[in-house]
């Protein structure tokens, strides 16, 4: 084989150039983002909690209010979030919520996935609701989706870079953000809700091939006991489904987006079959659900348990599916659209009984921002907190 020296030389130059570009870009990517959005004052501590005194093995439900109040230390957080352009409207959104809270300013927190680019991308962070732009605490957990209750128990759904394919895990953590149990999840994390009593959680992941053609995705919703890590239900689709007084059963059932009522027994979720979505109401102990109405996805129960915020499917077909944020009254099952006109693909979180929080991706980046909009269909959406995703309001 006759190869001119020029061509071989050219090839060597090409390889060197490619390798250099790749290396430089990766190193640059690893470093960027920091200065603009997130200033790391010191390396994050391995545990969120600064007060080492109460690493008790006791039950979380038994925690005293004092424990709770001291837990996310407002001043000693290691990381400070300084938004470049601080939206004037955003902090005000929280002010309305403070008044009813009897426990005072320190009582309510916001837990979320930080999407600020940089070394803390994807980390679970906590900020006091009345000082969202103040110091915040960053935990060592990295979550794609999370939910927790104020008493401390929570679930962090993580998608880890892993060999040879990503590993999906559900990390059940305690009040100190320490891992109690790690469960392997069989797909991409989608939704998670912890029951108000902190005992169980419903986890939804995407599972491909479930409907038996590789061209379609489906979901798997499981219920876990947060204390023991045991699966209470390995597939909620196995619950008895009732529709119009009859048992309803199809092979293509998919159930996702659970939200728990105050009694931690009753729950609402989405059921999809035959190309339609339904709102279902179920009972965990009875292992039964019944169909309430059509076209409700990812319901989220208001704190007073009277309304459901959800995404209502519009469009579809060949074009992109869009979802309109809506709220329905549980007594009448009638719904109304909220003033957010952009498509929202999220299970919303109620900030209080009057406003809901949801996330939207920022154009052309991996960053998502959390927005707030009144739940009665009035007003206008406002930016609530930038560079956050999967927010959880930790109420007293």
């Amino acid at each position, binding site marked *: 084989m006759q190869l001119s020296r020029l061509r071989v030389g050219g090839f060597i130059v*090409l390889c060197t150039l490619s390798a250099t570009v790749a290396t430089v870009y990766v190193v640059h990517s690893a470093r960027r983002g920091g200065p603009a959005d997130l200033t790391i004052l010191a390396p994050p501590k391995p545990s969120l909690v600064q007060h080492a005194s109460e690493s008790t093995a006791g039950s979380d439900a038994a925690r005293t209010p004092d424990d709770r109040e001291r837990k996310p230390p407002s001043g000693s957080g290691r990381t400070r979030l300084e938004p470049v352009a601080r939206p004037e409207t955003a902090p005000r959104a929280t002010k309305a919520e403070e008044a009813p809270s009897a426990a005072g300013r320190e009582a309510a927190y916001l837990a979320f996935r930080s999407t600020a680019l940089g070394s803390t991308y994807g980390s679970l962070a906590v900020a006091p609701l009345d000082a969202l732009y103040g110091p915040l605490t960053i935990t060592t957990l990295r979550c794609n989706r999370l939910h927790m209750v104020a008493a401390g128990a929570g679930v962090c759904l993580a998608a880890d870079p892993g060999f040879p394919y990503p590993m999906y895990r559900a990390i059940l953590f305690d009040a100190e953000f320490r891992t109690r149990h790690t469960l392997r999840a069989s797909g991409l994390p989608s939704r998670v809700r912890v029951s108000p009593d902190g005992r169980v959680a419903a986890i939804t992941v995407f599972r*491909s091939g479930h409907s038996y053609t590789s061209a379609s995705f489906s979901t798997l919703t499981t219920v876990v006991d947060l204390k023991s890590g045991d699966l209470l239900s390995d597939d909620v689709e196995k619950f008895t489904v009732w529709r119009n007084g009859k048992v309803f059963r199809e092979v293509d059932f998919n159930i996702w987006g659970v939200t728990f009522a105050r009694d931690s027994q009753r729950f609402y979720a989405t059921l999809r079959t035959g190309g339609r979505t339904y709102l279902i109401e179920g009972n965990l102990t009875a292992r039964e659900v019944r169909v309430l109405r059509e076209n409700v996805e990812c319901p989220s129960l208001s704190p007073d348990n009277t309304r459901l915020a959800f995404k209502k499917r519009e469009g579809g077909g060949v074009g992109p599916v869009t979802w309109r944020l809506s709220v329905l009254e549980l007594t009448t099952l009638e719904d109304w659209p909220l003033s957010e006109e952009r498509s929202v693909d999220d299970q919303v979180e109620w900030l209080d009984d009057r406003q809901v929080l949801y996330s939207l991706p920022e154009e052309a980046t991996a960053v998502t921002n959390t927005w707030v909009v009144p739940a009665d269909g009035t007003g206008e959406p406002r930016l609530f907190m930038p560079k956050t995703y999967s927010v959880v309001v930790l109420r007293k």
Partner: protein
Amino acid sequence: MYPSVRDSFLTPADSQVAAGRRALSMRVSSNVVFLGLTSLFTDVSSEMVNAILPIYLTFELRFSPLQFGLFDGLYHGVTAILRLAGGLIADRLQNHKSVAAIGYSLSVGCKLALLAAANAWLWAMGILFLDRLGKGIRTAPRDALISLSAARANLAEAFGLHRAFDTAGACLGPVLAFCVLGFAPGAFDAVFVVSFCAAVIGLGVLVVFVENRGGALDRITTGSAVSLRAALRLLRVPRFRTLAFVGTVLSLATVSDSFVYLTFQRRAHIDPMFFPLLYVGTAAVYLLLSVPVGRLADRAGRGRVFIAGYVLLLGLYGTLLVAAPGAGALICGVVLFGAYYAATDGVLMALASEVVPGHLRTSGFALLTTAVAVARFVAAVLFGALWSWQGPEWTVVFFVVALGTVIPLAALGLSRRSREPASEMV
């Protein structure tokens, strides 16, 4: 003196070996190794992107599952269309390398374009569609080059070597992608840049080191032209027709990869942690066996090894039927599946190299692989439909019966084929 018809199927590599019998026992020409390296780098590049695609599309581009499904369908369905067109052009120009290079270049460009696509789901879909087109264009001319670069006696080994490189690249890609994401969390653009660089190196190897091999000799000697009609006329050649028929019918009774893994997952209740190991295990077995099995095929008979591969597949179906498979059954299944790939994938192309004249090599390959791909697609749809209707167990039994019936027929067809005189081919 004109060479006989049979001699006209000798490739340049054959004549080299025949004439020189060079001291170095280089059974496989360096061209095959370089084509393998090209595939390795290109596969590293594509699999890097594929591995993060589910995360990227649903999280960053906000695809709905429906859109993802739609996209997935397009993504996999497109390959077949361009194959034949690319094949005809390559044969007509007698320039397999350039057509392959166009296919590889398309993939390089797409990796760069993905960077710019960012939030526009339609754009991202369009780009990945183009990437598939690139794959459709390059596969047949690349296989033609391999077949024209290897001595006739070592065809299966040459294909085995190439597939080993290819599989190694596919295994390395995801690892590299997650190294990048581990180092720079959330930096999907960095993955695309690294992927782009890998694709550039792959294209570089092809352009600089791979030599073009034409079947021009055949055209001169046989005087036949390259046209769609000529390519389709291949179907009238008994040996080619038999091979295409055998390949298609066997593929109709073949369960697709994802269903094999899904059935394993369902029946074995495997800890999802070990689930990816099924893919890796299969790839590793394929990688290890593809050269030795290719060599075996060259010695013991390619048709025999090809049929034996499907018998191994039948064995795999057997492990799928074990009620509650333990680790032993799973390992057995993975080994059988990897060995099945090693015995059939490259060997089929080696078999085809024997019967497709050099000047129609690319179009003939394109015709054959398209038929096989369509049959696989039909089998996947059938399997899915049966599964939702009757459940996995019944479906697997159905496929066992189907494959069990087809294998003897295929064996009969192939053995008859080998007895047919070669002169009927042209």
